[in-house]
């Protein structure tokens, strides 16, 4: 079963999260810049004379498609690397995925999200 992770994280945590994912063998992903807020209130910015409030803050959404046997490991890696303990750390959404097709090779399903030395290859190498 394939799943999609949408991890909305702090801009300044992107490098830490990517490194943590690389370490466990999550290779394919994309990210988009997004604006939003959860329960916290935004920040105060300075103008020429005085200040003003900005509610919708810039975050980064990392999208990962993966098979569900790798889901918990990946979530754990993201949680550990993206968190600061302060409000504004972000949120993760999980969705089911109907199908994945790699355009160049027309591979479908599990094969389309496999890469050399990825998380499944690393798990195979580990002694049982």
């Amino acid at each position, binding site marked *: 079963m394939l799943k999609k992770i949408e991890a909305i994280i702090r*801009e*300044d*945590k992107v*490098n830490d999260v990517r490194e943590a994912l690389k370490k466990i063998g999550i290779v394919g992903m994309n990210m988009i810049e997004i604006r939003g807020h959860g329960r916290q209130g935004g*920040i105060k*910015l*300075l103008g020429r004379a005085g*200040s003003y409030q900005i509610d919708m803050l810039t975050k980064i959404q990392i999208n990962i498609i993966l098979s569900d046997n790798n889901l918990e490991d990946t979530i754990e890696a993201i949680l550990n690397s993206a968190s*600061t303990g302060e409000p504004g750390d972000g949120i993760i959404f999980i969705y089911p995925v109907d199908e994945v097709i790699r355009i160049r090779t027309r591979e479908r399903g599990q094969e389309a999200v496999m890469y050399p030395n990825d998380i499944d290859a690393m798990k195979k190498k580990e002694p049982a």
Partner: protein
Amino acid sequence: MNSGDTAWVLVCCSLVLLMTPALALFYGGMVRKKNLLSTLTLSFIFMSLISVQWVLYGYSLSFGADIKGLIGGLNYIGFTGVDALPNAAYSQTIPHGLFAAFQMMFAIITPALITGALVERIKFKSFLIFGLLWATLVYDPLCHWVWGQGGWLKEMGVLDFAGGTVVHIAAGFSALAFAMVIGPRKGFGKSPMEPNNIPLTVLGAGLLWVGWFGFNAGSALAANGVAVNALLTTNTSAATAGLVWMMLSWLDGRPSTLGIATGMIVGLAAVTPASGYVTPLTAMFIGAVAAPLSYYSMRLRDKRNLDESLDVWACHGMASTWGMIATGLFATVAVNSGGANGMFFGNPNQLGIQILAVIVTICFSFGATYVIAKLLHWSIGLRVTPMEEEVGLDISSHGERSYS
């Protein structure tokens, strides 16, 4: 007093002042987006800070009544005695106030050059204190030694037409010292740190080149043949260095716009001390040598993993070091009867004086900056917190963003 000279130098005050916001843009385009405003402000603020310091006491320390060849006195404090009549020590044909104003623009841009070493991580408060201390304890004395009446390097006969030592070598080696103390940016060597806006950098470079005519040709302090020569040497060196860097960049793969712009600036920095003493053809050679010198200095700095972020040492420190030496080789009284001959014109002594001035400038600026930076590091700290650095100085230091 000569109204032609006065009008020209008045214009040059504007040209040189323009170089500081130009430098702000040049640097700003090369940092990450989240630090653009901070980087602009680091240069911009010197327009205010040094303008005030200069009038209060900076000019006096630099060009006041000499004390043992080392520093000026306080006779020009608050610009008293700096008025409309010429000061024969510095120029017969322009008002004293104009000379002081023109020099002020050099005093403004020099500390701004150093900011290239400390971008993206400096604490603003520490930076302001550093700027004031550096201007007072490094720039003003050095300026006095090289250009001040009675200054010991000037008395020795050093040739520095527009600020090879006082501006570029000093800024370059001070930047090196500061970078060593403040340490690298978080993620240096691991995370990408791409220029956020190369068009800004190119715009800055173009304005710098134009402004440099005021910097070099204006240093003739007269609308005369020497000024014209300085303009021609300035232009030729910049042009040649730009072409050579383009070729070096091409060897790397493709000729980069950023490389071409950088090459031009390096040519300008190199010719600065020589501009009023050598021929345009010599200036071509100066630019041609400056480009690979700075290019490989940059590569060396990178290989040594030192985060002197915007390469002030490679582009200004090393380029002008070559320029000072070139002056000692190629200076000729045929270009400027008020100067001297260099080694290739029968006066090998001049090369020795130039080398001495370079060594003195390097040791003094590097040493003093290292000490000042260390003292600030130990007391109030030089860097923002890691989280502030990650969020970006625009928001954490200034509460603003460049783009909404």
